[in-house]
């Protein structure tokens, strides 16, 4: 047994370490199109102290550490690009505290979205968190660490905006609390009114430390959820429709989607509007407001509301299990998307681009945009499905996604969860002093460069 393996076993026990070919093969890849790279060890800690010891060991031995949730970013963000230790965080899955009145929860970083949802439904049914569309196995820490979004993002911003405090193991091995929990017992603020240190970790994809605990805002869970589906074939109207809908200031979530299959959806743009209420009256009032708001487009025969009875349960499901089904459209088990954050006025250009890229690279597309913070921006998903047994198709998808990111950057957008190549493209586009600031932060926090190396690597 190697010294490093023995040291890891000493920290987490025999069942918490693997360097077997099977685990090394599996943890070297994610479901996206990026090439795999093998780790040297996969380690599954159960406590913050174990994470601390592992990071200290990695520091002493100068070994990379890649913290991983469920590995479902699709963008290869936890592929160990330079080997080392993949930290499977899913055994750190305790829900530690719910402050009902202050509406926040504190969880261990490896807690799954699904487990938190189930826990709240059972124990605090009037509260909810912003559930992402990613599978229920995805973890809370991974989601905030890549600025994930969820059902409440239109109302309250990125899921990372909903963080109320963090516990982080720094690359030095020190355990650090961020925000109000660094001062007292309450996890009520990740930063304000202090200097907001959470920005040193949120969005960094594990490159500056391992998030071991997360405080997360909870929100009222209304008794009734409902949805309406507005359909138009005029892409130029979409920004205006979204603007009017967000002016209502009462909608849970707004998604715009279009796809060529099934054929009944082809050629139209679909706006799904979600709203909630504690009474039928409240729901009906909101429904009327939505209808009234879009009446002019119905009068001009530019659009109308589509019956959703047959797909209502699918639309309202959280997370949407049907989303993964896109991966099987080409009977091939994969899809990946570029998800730039962009102004809503650019929707028509993005919509044209996704169709253009699909045709150019001969791949199947689907596109969904989600509004963020009441329309200040949108996440525009350019998704391409692929057949995992067709390497040429996977290469075409990779090229299409790279071109999509280049397009988004040209349009003034910023990529969401960019892979390491897209990170480089972004850094090249970035204003030099901002890039220098990133370099300073990274070098100071992780001088050895052991944290998820290959990602957010800033060259001076």
């Amino acid at each position, binding site marked *: 047994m190697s010294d490093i393996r023995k040291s890891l076993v000493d920290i987490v026990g025999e069942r*918490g370490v693997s360097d077997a070919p099977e685990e090394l093969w599996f943890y070297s890849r994610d479901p996206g199109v990026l090439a795999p790279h093998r780790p040297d060890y996969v380690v599954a800690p159960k406590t913050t102290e174990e994470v601390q010891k592992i990071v200290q060991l990695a520091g002493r031995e100068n070994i990379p550490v890649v913290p991983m949730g469920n590995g479902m970013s699709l963008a290869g963000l936890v592929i160990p690009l330079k080997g080392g230790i993949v930290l499977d965080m899913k055994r750190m899955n305790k829900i530690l505290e719910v402050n009902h009145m202050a509406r926040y929860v504190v969880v261990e970083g490896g807690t799954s979205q699904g487990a938190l949802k189930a826990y709240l439904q059972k124990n605090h049914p009037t509260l909810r968190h912003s559930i992402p569309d990613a*599978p229920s196995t995805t973890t809370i820490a991974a989601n905030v660490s890549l600025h994930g979004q969820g059902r409440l993002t239109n109302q309250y911003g990125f899921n990372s905006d909903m963080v109320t405090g963090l516990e982080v193991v720094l690359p030095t091995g020190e355990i650090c609390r961020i925000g109000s929990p660094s001062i007292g017992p309450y996890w009520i603020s990740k930063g304000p009114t202090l200097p907001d240190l959470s920005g040193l970790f949120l969005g960094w994809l594990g490159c500056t430390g391992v998030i071991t605990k997360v405080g997360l805002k909870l929100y009222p869970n209304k008794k009734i959820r409902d949805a309406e589906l507005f359909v138009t074939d005029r892409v130029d109207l979409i920004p205006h429709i979204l603007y009017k809908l967000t002016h209502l200031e009462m909608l849970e979530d707004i998604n715009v989607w279009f796809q060529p299959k099934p054929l009944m959806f082809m050629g139209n743009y679909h706006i799904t509007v979600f709203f909630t209420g504690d009474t039928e009256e409240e729901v009906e009032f909101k429904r009327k407001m939505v209808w009234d708001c879009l009446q002019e487009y119905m009068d001009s025969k530019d659009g109308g509301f589509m019956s959703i009875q047959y797909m209502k349960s699918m639309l309202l499901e959280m997370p949407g299990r049907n989303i993964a089904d896109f991966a099987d459209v080409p009977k091939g088990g994969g899809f990946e998307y570029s998800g730039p954050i962009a102004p809503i006025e650019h929707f028509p250009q993005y919509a044209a681009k996704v169709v253009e890229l699909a045709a150019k690279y001969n791949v199947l597309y689907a596109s969904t945009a989600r509004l963020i913070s009441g329309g200040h921006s949108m996440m525009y998903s350019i998704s391409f499905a692929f057949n995992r047994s067709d390497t040429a198709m996977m290469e075409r998808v990779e090229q299409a996604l790279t071109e999509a990111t280049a397009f988004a950057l040209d349009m003034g957008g910023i990529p969401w969860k960019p892979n390491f190549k897209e990170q480089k493209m972004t850094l090249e586009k970035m204003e030099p002093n901002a890039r220098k600031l990133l370099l300073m932060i990274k070098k100071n926090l992780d001088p050895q460069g052991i944290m998820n190396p290959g990602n957010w690597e800033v060259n001076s």
Partner: protein
Amino acid sequence: MTYIRHIEHENIVHRCFRCGYCKFPSDYSDFNCPSYKAFGWDTFSPGGRMWLTRAWLSGEIETSARFAEIMFSCVACDNCKDQCVFPRFKDFLPDIFQETRAELVGEGRIPPGVRDYFKAVAISGNPYKLPQSERGDWARGTGLKPFTNQKHLFYAGCVGSYDEVGKRMAQSVGKMLVDAGLSVGILGSEETCDGNDVRVLGEMGLFAELAQANIEKFKAKGVKEIITLDPHALNTFKKDYPALGGVFQVRHYSEVLAELVKKKKIKLKAYPVKITYHDPCYLGRHQSIYQAPREILKAIPKAEFVEMHRSGPDAFCCGGGGGNFFTDILGTAEDSAARVRVREAAETGARILAVACPNCAKMLSDAVKMENLEDRLELLGIAEILERVRK
């Protein structure tokens, strides 16, 4: 030696997205895959098995003890099949895992526990390596007679015939059937293993031999209707035997007893106790029999029936399926399925944990001891409870 590997459904394995829905029950409250729960590596989840199977078929990874452990730790509980979000291939997941195990059996690279299980069944006709002559001893005192031309054959199975916990369950069922006046007989020392777990573990040749022998025996004796103690036997009799020419009317004993209770052939007295029920995978998810055991328990006057958080199609397996009852690859650590399950049962506040499968009974009774729950939780078969409450 280089093996050319092939499984029937290999054109599907690349279609798994490894999204992980397969690990959960429908409400996501906890991991519902016993091997993932026990080992905690993604490789031990259904998605992990799918991806590894693909890598193994393509030669990216080799056969190893670890690979075999991963494949044989699957308990065939079918939760993944129910929870997978891909309707066009979800039904084939358990088949793919079984086919992979069958390939490993063909290569001769299987865990020692699996090898020993096959050897015992092949040589002794049962996994306990106990004499065939003792197979029917459990029935002494039940009033059950050897099968001649009775209407029903009561098939006890290996666990019901040889294991102490299983024998108690078999005896209770036997007494109930006899006392209710059913025309029923047993094969006793002529009974042999049904082969369900042999098939699930991938020894298809041995399974075919066992099944053919059973079918010929049943036919020769004029068996038309079978009542099984063991849901595993029920499953293979109903799903696999017809394709081999063995078409019989097969029911689980809980279905028969539920009918007898309903018809007042078994009359019940009051029993003020809180009872919960564990759904066996081969009765529930495999055969969709959820109500019969519950109808019996709910019919007991003054008894309070309470569900565990995970129940019915969402029930968490005891960890004894897929041959793990015998091979014990999952082990008995804190996160082993049976220990998790009895903790869940205890959380309900129930005094009795009712079971309808001898494998589950043994797994869970051992776990009750390991969790030091003997003072709080009594484990009883459905018929054992009926024995206690019948007038």
